[in-house]
């Protein structure tokens, strides 16, 4: 039982990362209908930037906002320079450009910081608290930071005029343009915000896994799974979906472990994390493409 609670708790901690990444994906998807395959590598690059700043002696809590700002600027720049001309391009062209971005960030990170893995210290102090038998302080901090970022985003979109304009631009670009909103810039800002949220995810996950150019592969896959489970057109759903797949991931491994101990038959374990994500992705896409909270889109012929 204790193990089960531990698994759920650490699942929630991973889920926080998946939720941030899923939210970043959904923010770009709702406004442009593009799935950003480079989101994971962008987050990885941000994590490297944060590590570099800390190596240069910057305090963690200064480095993090700085990296978020840099990532925001980079996101805006990428949208304006690379994706802007492709707004009405065929899907294949857009997918190919995203894959191109993915490989560029991957190669740049490997070239600048080499492929040797780096241990990143946790920004949170090691303290004991009631329940620390079940969850580590870094995991708890991860959840707290993620929730803080999500709440800030929610407040931004809900209570500020800029947030309202961005929502309008995403929901109905034509009307938004008529109302005097610069839809193009709203899209770029959305990209910037997505990059910043991804940066938080990257920086938070780096101490949990080791920092290396490949670190985001499985995390991005679970981010996709989370976004799909929650419904890729629903930001709130994506966050919920992220937490759901985080817990699910651990529960499946736990269940596999229990079955192996009871019957001696190995079915699934930690070695099949990516396969599990693949199954979740394909199952959701084929059985319920709108996810749990998404809108069912009806295409006009």
């Amino acid at each position, binding site marked *: 039982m204790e193990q089960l609670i531990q698994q759920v708790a650490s699942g929630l901690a991973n889920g926080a990362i998946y939720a941030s990444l899923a939210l970043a994906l959904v923010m770009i998807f709702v406004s442009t*209908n*593009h*799935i950003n*395959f480079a989101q994971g590598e962008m987050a990885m690059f941000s994590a490297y930037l944060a590590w570099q700043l800390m190596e240069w002696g910057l305090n963690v809590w200064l480095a993090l906002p700085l990296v978020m700002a840099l990532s925001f600027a980079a996101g805006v720049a990428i949208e304006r320079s*690379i994706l802007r*001309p*492709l707004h009405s*391009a065929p*899907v*294949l*062209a*857009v*997918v*190919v*450009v995203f*894959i*191109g*971005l*993915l*490989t*560029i960030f*991957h*190669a*740049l990170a*490997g*070239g*600048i910081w*080499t492929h040797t893995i780096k241990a990143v210290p946790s920004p949170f102090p090691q303290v004991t608290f009631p329940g620390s038998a079940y969850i580590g302080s870094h995991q708890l901090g991860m959840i707290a930071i993620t929730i803080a970022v999500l709440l800030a985003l929610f407040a931004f979109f809900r209570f500020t005029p800029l947030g309202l304009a961005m929502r309008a631009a995403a929901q109905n670009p034509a009307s938004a343009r008529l109302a005097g909103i610069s839809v193009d810039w709203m899209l770029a800002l959305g990209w910037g915000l997505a990059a910043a949220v991804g940066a938080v995810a990257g920086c938070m996950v780096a101490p949990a896994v080791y920092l290396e150019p490949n670190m985001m*592969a*499985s995390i991005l*896959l679970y981010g*996709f799974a989370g976004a*799909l489970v929650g419904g890729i057109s629903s930001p709130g759903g994506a966050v919920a979906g992220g937490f759901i797949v985080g817990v699910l991931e651990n529960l499946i491994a736990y269940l596999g472990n229990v079955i192996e101990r009871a019957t001696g038959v*190995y079915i699934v374990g930690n*070695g*099949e*994390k*990516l*396969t599990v*994500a*693949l199954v979740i*992705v*394909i199952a959701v*896409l*084929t059985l319920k*493409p709108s996810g749990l909270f998404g809108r069912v889109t009806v295409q006009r*012929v």
Partner: protein
Amino acid sequence: MASTVLASGTAADRAPGSLRRYRWWLLLIVLPVLLIAGGKTGLVSDFQFLQLSLMIVYSIAVLGLILLTGFNGQISLGHGAFFAVGAYTAAILIDQHDWPFWATLPAAALACFVAGYLFGLPALRLEGHYLALATFALAVAVPQILKYRHIEPVTKGVMGINVFKSDPPFGLPLSNDQWMFLVVLAIAALMFWIARNLLDSRTGRALIAIRDHPMAAGTMGVNVAHYKTVMFGISALYTGIAGALHGIIFEFVSPDSFRFELSIAILVGAVVGGIASLPGAVIGGIFVQVIEKYADALTKKISAAVQLPLELEPWLIYGIALIALMYAMPTGIAGGLAALWRRLRRL
């Protein structure tokens, strides 16, 4: 026979007795004869024959993706998976069942067709970005699937399988690499010929109609679901045969040779060559092998020349090539050359 001419020519080209009609076949005979002669006199080394074989192998793999994406409109970022299925089928049959290498090719083709058909079924419900997403997930998960504990006795897990090359038959005076080059070239010619005829047929027109407008194609009586799944199977078959040949001439397969990077390399080949062009597949295959082999040295030279403080990676070239081509030459090198040729003719 007219349909076998790779470049569609004018009526005069197709006149009986015209040599131009057979120029591609002629090339297919003259080129290897010249190369083998070069090999005999030491001008072309065995290593270069291996490189040529690998280029041809990647061309077949890229052709598989081009058939699916360029002519049927289904995006796949996970063709490395079918490459892996083909390679493993061949390696396992050779290593554990002592099959001769040529007999493993039909087996690999069948295995990949079935795998592709089965993956094509859920893919039916997916379009555009969603299909890209599902195949992306497949590509990322492949190495892990190959290491799954229950298939480990067969796949040998992370250790991989060594495949031993067979010597040329009938005591032919050829080296191993020269012989495999001829085999690979013959198979590639056959595969391209089949692809050409497939696209020129009723089926091919249905496939292209589905790409251009699935709903209109359906209204015209094309069985969209049937064609799309079968096309996924055929595409996987092409890439799988390439995988099998790769395993045979490379003499080794392991889970980590089929990482996500392989799927990207195939995609890059298709985009660089020309996504809806059969000659584009050849260009794409050459590009993939050249980058894989020489990009490392090239990027090292560049970073040394301009004294960059960081090490450039070959992957950077892939990424930049992808984005630059989407802007400058969306139809790939083959499309760009064709456009250039048309312009020159008009002058």
